[in-house]
């Protein structure tokens, strides 16, 4: 009897903490998104999805833009991270952990400072563009900052380590004998990769996609530092509705849209790969 209680006792402190400061606040966002009012006069739970509809229709440009930036940056990050993770896992040899460490170096510099550094590097008259322009290799009007590409660049850069890690874990655990078997059965490199390695690393691809995509859709710092007025994303809208307009139901409805996206993604992952593996890649 006492032994059976052990895991519950061990879990209890974290469970309470996470329930109070993570699950309940997020659940109340969902609840608040179908209410009207503000903190002073209290809320009325209408149960209408009215706020949702108006939130989505008012900010559809920003929503669609955020999704597009999220998809683009995640796909580019995957395309860059996969070969890196693959090479480190299969050919890293004794230096595997050194290569991984080098890939994780940005973790030791503040997110805001990394993004700021890019702002300075990519500035119109900065080190790179300034010189290229003075050498006449680029037209004077050329600029990167405040374009969509600058934002996607920043998002991609900042999510790189978050994608390399789950991919590395997934590829690393592939049994080398399976790969060798494919070779012995005369599969060429391309087919070994497409038929054996790629499917076996799918959980890592999906887990990383989920992690990076959801984070990037909701990000607003890259957009604020590297982007301009034409790159406004939904994260900034949520921030503004909280601090500038104090429209909490609107902020909650927009947060809920992002949260539903996360829940759908987690559900899809759990259905495809099961729940056991889900946090091994995180």
């Amino acid at each position, binding site marked *: 009897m006492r032994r059976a209680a052990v895991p519950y006792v061990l*879990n209890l402190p974290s469970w309470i903490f996470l329930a109070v400061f993570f699950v309940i606040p997020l659940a109340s966002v969902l609840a608040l998104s179908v209410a009207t009012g503000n903190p002073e006069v209290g809320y009325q739970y209408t149960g209408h999805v009215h706020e949702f509809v108006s939130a989505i229709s008012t900010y559809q440009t920003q929503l669609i833009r955020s999704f597009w930036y999220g998809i683009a940056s995640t796909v580019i990050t995957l395309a860059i991270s996969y070969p890196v993770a693959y*090479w480190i896992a299969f*050919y890293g040899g004794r230096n595997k952990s050194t290569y991984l460490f080098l890939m994780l170096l940005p973790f*030791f510099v503040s997110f805001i400072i990394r993004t700021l550094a890019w702002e300075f590097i990519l500035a119109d008259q900065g080190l790179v563009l300034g010189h290229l322009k003075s050498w006449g290799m680029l037209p004077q009007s050329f600029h990167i900052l405040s374009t969509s590409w600058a934002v996607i660049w920043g998002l991609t850069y900042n999510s790189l380590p978050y994608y390399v890690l789950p991919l590395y874990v997934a590829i690393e655990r592939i049994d080398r004998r399976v790969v060798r078997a494919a070779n012995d059965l005369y599969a060429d490199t391309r087919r070994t990769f497409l038929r054996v390695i790629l499917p076996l690393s799918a959980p890592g691809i999906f887990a990383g996609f989920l*992690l990076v995509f959801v984070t990037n859709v909701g990000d607003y710092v890259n957009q604020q530092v590297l982007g301009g007025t034409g790159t406004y994303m939904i994260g900034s809208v949520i*921030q503004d509705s909280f601090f500038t307009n104090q429209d909490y139901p609107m902020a909650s409805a927009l947060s809920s849209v992002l949260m539903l996206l996360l829940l759908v993604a987690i559900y899809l992952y759990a259905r495809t790969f099961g729940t056991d593996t889900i946090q091994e890649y995180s």
Partner: protein
Amino acid sequence: MTETVLQPGTSIDAPPLVRRQRRKLSGYVLPVFVWLVIAWTIVPIVFMIIFSFNQAPTGRLAFNWFGLTGTWYRNVFAIGGLTQALEHSLAIATLSSIISVVLGTPMALALARYRFYGKAMTDMVIFADIAAPSVVVGAALLGFFLTLNVPRGLATILIAHVAFSVVFVVVVVRARVSGLDRSLDRAAADLGANPWIAFWKVLFPLILPGIVAGGLLAFAMSIDDLIITSFVAGQAVTFPLWVYGAVKTGIPPQVFVMGTMIFVAGVVLAIVNSLVSRRSPA
């Protein structure tokens, strides 16, 4: 060990063309790509370090190089608000990593060693916490604190930081516990140790590197967080918040000096921890 005798890796009838193709890709193209990505990863870090020595004429970070100076290092704490913000960040990061370790380690033990009701649910919550967009978590916590009339300040920042870093401690420590040989526990029990003594004498020393790594990760995430903090900070200012607030008025070079110092300290700590954990028997 009979496996090694049967290994077909040396088979001589493999088509040579395939092997050569593969060697070209893995031996030349991929490593060059990996090193390019690592170089790209390091660019903003190098920029930060070099420009922390830049003799910028206006006392603000400049786009171009004006000559070497140690002024910013000598006057690193000359800006009162920035120094105080850094102190806040360091205090919150220290406390939140300690609390996260204390809360997270028992949960990691429970998840790694026991079957219990609600395990799948716990996994899901952990993953949701890791993947949840910061802007949603921040907005949800602010709404929660507003509803309960909790004054925002350093305490709410601390709570928010524990809420997102505790799950990272769980993931890291759990990986360490899962990698351990269970017969060690049983040996301790057979030798008459009660579970409490067995834990402190056997398990704890073995998982300590995992706990330290989890704590360092929690520290790094806390000192780095901008988005969630911006929601729950009230009038309090942390290092990333101060830097973000200064983006529009111009960044003093001291920011890069502090960034460089944090970077160097983090890298040194990570290297020391990995050396120590490599020496330990597990």
